[in-house]
């Protein structure tokens, strides 16, 4: 039997799918009777899904255009 602390020590690898199958079975056995760790796994996965889906930190095209223009002006100036 593994404890919540044992589970927390492996949760990072578990989320990345990088645990050996024997360890995975132990972790999933723990999950089958531990509501707290199940919630942690579930909500962390939901966090990752939201982070991936949301398109956060997009630089608007019109914000990039003047930056690109400045860079190209410097490069073309240096190239002359």
């Amino acid at each position, binding site marked *: 039997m593994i404890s919540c602390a044992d589970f927390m020590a492996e949760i990072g690898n578990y989320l990345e799918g990088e645990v050996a199958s024997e360890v995975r079975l132990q972790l999933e056995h723990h999950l089958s009777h531990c509501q707290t760790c199940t919630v942690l796994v579930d909500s962390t996965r939901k966090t990752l899904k*939201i*982070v991936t889906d949301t398109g*956060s930190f997009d630089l608007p095209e019109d914000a990039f255009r003047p930056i690109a223009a400045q860079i190209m002006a410097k490069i073309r100036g240096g190239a002359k």
Partner: protein
Amino acid sequence: MSYFGEVDLGSSFQPFTACREQFGFVPKLFRAQTLLPRLIEAEGALSSAILFTDKALTRTQKECILLVLAAAQANDYCFSLHYQMLRLLGVTEQRLDRIVADYQRADLSPTTAALLTLVLNLGTKEAVQEASSQGLSDESILEAILTAGLSRLLCTLATGVGAVPDFAVRPIPPQQSALIRDVDSGGPFLPAPELPDNYVPFVFLSEQFGAVPKVFRAQTLRPDILQAETDALRRLLLPEDALSRTQKRDILLTGADLEALRKSGHSQEQALEAAVITSFAAFLDVLQTGLGAGSDFAGKIGAKKVHLSPPEPRHTAVTLSIDLDADTVARVQKGDLDAFEELMTRHNQRVYRTLVGILGNPDDARDAMQDTFLKVFQHLGGFEGRSKFSTWLVSIATNTGIQRLRERRPMESLDESGPDEEGFRPRQVQAWTDDPEQLYSQAEMRSLIENGVMRLPMKYRMVLMLRDIEQLSIEEAASALGLGIPATKARLLRGRLMLRESLAPHFIPSGNMGSAKGVTN
């Protein structure tokens, strides 16, 4: 060597390390996919679970299945690979040649012969019953069918990426012609213990496909394989750095139209990903046929007997794509300044996000973009393409960001542990709502995420930004940040848990609030 450019992933890329341990080298099939390392990780995890884990069948039996099926599919690449693997496992050439010529007259053990008969005749309950009557256990039959699925995956992939054989090609002797049968719909053919809908892999599959496809419910004798399959699908489907999630799900469910993709001007990464997703569709197709689990995936591939025809020629459409970055970099190196502008346009989001992750605010990040791109231009002449251009670019952005930070806060060590480094404990442990993305508008959600990420300590924010928002692999993120893999993983986990903590109040149904107990035991 293949249709796709190859980049150096460093000596510590885990799937390549595993290949060297298992094969003594890294097969070209995998080297052909280094543009998107997560694809190799997905295939590596699945192959390891099926091939390298000794449960019911031995490695030699599984390699025999792979050899015979590669011959049946007339796939030179896989045939030469598995031939060589069996040689390394101690099987003589003479014996291998006899197996390939006619396995039923090769003095194989009755068990191995029954396995080969099974995988060459998948699709009916009788084939499974015949295997049982020859003494094969349900676990052995399932593992043989999984290995057959892996064979189809590897053969489809080898064709799709245009891998050149690693070893001298041996002529494949003429194979017995295939008996085409209709797929028997009276499955499932094997017992499959019921697992609850909240079983973790099932939860992911439901999220992706609306329900758990029958082919997964038919494999519950091997939860470790189910986990490996869902892990692989997670790596394939979630990131959107090449194809969109919708495109990928469509390929899995209905088959790829690579020709249409080609005509629409896809990038090399997109073509590669399409080829890999197609090979996974072929894998799932073999399983659903072999297990009698209906046809949720890529029905076109499974319309007839699955092993005995070579992958469809349209897979080779991927040959016509070009490596946008490599060509563009070469043009810049020859003095074409417009090409540099193209590179900036293509990668400005990546540079911006890297810099936001380090500097912690959008204005500073925009400001540092100019420095970054000027350094890239200055050093591009010396860039030899040993790593992916985008990885090299991220490491320059990282260095630029860190340099700025040091100028701003010279006394702060970027590696110093925060006061609560070891003391962090999740406190919000109430269940989240089932579908958090339905609670807020896209703009509100973006604002929640951006605020949450910005509040993370810098060292966690940097890693989370590169891995979870920029979708780099752990190895790429570690390399760009100049950190070791364990430190990168530790910081990533801490960042994810802290972000989860800060988002939790927004996604816990109000009736569940107020019973926090934290993780204690």
